[in-house]
């Protein structure tokens, strides 16, 4: 990946380099599922990256291996960042092998996140598929902190099987809240699952919102986002108020290399959160 661009942050040459990652210490590692890990990291020095907005991402640098764009699933004022990583290849498997005390490089935050300012006063429909939940979790934290800013809040979270559900304990606590409604569904389950079974779109008819004043935030695999966006638009949500987060593979994260281009759009600079209005012509295309 970017090992040839990003200098090692432990070397003095890194200081001042615009693409130089800052060193962070791994504080905690939690196993979410067979292939997914949540890392809690904190700045090693007094320098930390600026606070990310919900939906923004950072570049996480696994030393000697390379770096990957990874969403921020929580952050704290002391600079702590939380990331949930699925082990799919070279960099992510190196990130998944990290243990407490290890060092990881961080640069960013980058991109445009969820348009929470525009969503104020509106109903929110939040739909997450699989690893689409981590970049949406900061939206839920914002809702909990400033509940009066939003109307009804409806959340649908889907995973392939019950074993693939992440943040399991937190999900239980969200389900007990009265200030939002969360529906959890899986594509298939054994007999020990007493929850809903069916793809995320099967839960939508149950969701109540006023389409003309609703913002929909959708994150998950591309097919899931396309089908969900179509379904919420069919229920009256405006395409320009329907937002998806595109996790197209990228390299530089600063709109130089063109790796993440999607039609005329650079995911890293214009996204990752983009409106369905802008993306609709491209989402149905298999390869852009």
């Amino acid at each position, binding site marked *: 990946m970017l090992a040839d661009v990003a200098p090692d942050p432990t070397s003095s040459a890194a200081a001042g380099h615009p693409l130089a990652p800052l060193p962070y210490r791994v504080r905690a590692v939690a196993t979410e599922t067979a292939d997914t890990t949540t890392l809690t990291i904190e700045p090693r020095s007094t320098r930390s990256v600026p606070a990310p907005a919900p939906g923004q991402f950072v570049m996480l640098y696994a030393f000697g291996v390379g770096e990957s764009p990874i969403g921020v699933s929580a952050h704290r004022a002391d600079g702590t960042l939380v990331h949930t990583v699925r082990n799919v290849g070279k960099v992510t498997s190196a990130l998944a092998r990290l243990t407490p005390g290890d060092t990881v490089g961080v640069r960013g935050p980058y991109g445009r996140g969820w348009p929470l300012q525009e969503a104020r006063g509106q109903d929110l429909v939040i739909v997450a598929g699989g690893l689409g939940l981590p970049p949406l979790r900061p939206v839920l934290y914002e809702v909990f902190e400033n509940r009066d800013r939003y109307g009804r809040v409806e959340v649908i979270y889907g995973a*392939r099987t019950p074993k693939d559900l992440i943040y399991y304990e937190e999900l239980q606590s969200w389900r007990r809240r009265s200030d939002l409604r969360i529906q959890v569904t899986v594509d298939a389950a*054994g*007999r020990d*699952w007493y929850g809903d*079974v069916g793809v995320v779109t099967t839960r939508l008819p149950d969701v109540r919102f006023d389409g003309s004043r609703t913002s929909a935030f959708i994150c998950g695999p591309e097919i899931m986002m396309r089908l969900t966006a179509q379904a919420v638009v069919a229920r009256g949500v405006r395409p320009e108020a329907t937002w998806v987060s595109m996790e197209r593979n990228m390299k530089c994260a600063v709109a130089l290399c063109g790796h993440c281009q999607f039609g005329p759009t650079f995911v890293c600079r214009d996204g990752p959160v983009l409106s369905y209005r802008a993306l609709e012509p491209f989402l149905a295309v298999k390869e852009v």
Partner: protein
Amino acid sequence: MSSRTTEDFREAVRRHPFLEGLDPAFLDAMVRLGVERRFRVDEHLAREGAPANVLYILLDGKVALEVGAADHPALTVQTVGAGEVLGWSWLVAPYRWRFDARAVKPVHAVEIEGGALRRLLSEHPDWGYQFLLRFLPVLAERLENTRIQLLDIHAR
């Protein structure tokens, strides 16, 4: 409909999304055929391969549709609940359930005997047509959801 059935129950049936707006005479005939049923968690509403002679109109609760085989643990492929209907095998030969249906939340439902309903629909072809127009979208939606499941939308 049995005497213990209250007017409230009849009203709940009339307002069920699947039936709402049907020709009132047809709706009354359906309500007369209906029997109120309740199922506890883990109780079966249907067993794969068994004779299918009822349509369930679900008023409350949740039902898991399961497929399985002797050498394979049961797999839930879909859940259905309030506002939905369950069962189409009573409509077409050989009238056998194609899956297990097990309550995963306490179920409150209307059970309509399939033979009686088939007779009603064939005696009143206009009602039969109305009914099929309601029923086909349910089948089409289940087919589409199965296709989406096959796409494995969680694959990266």
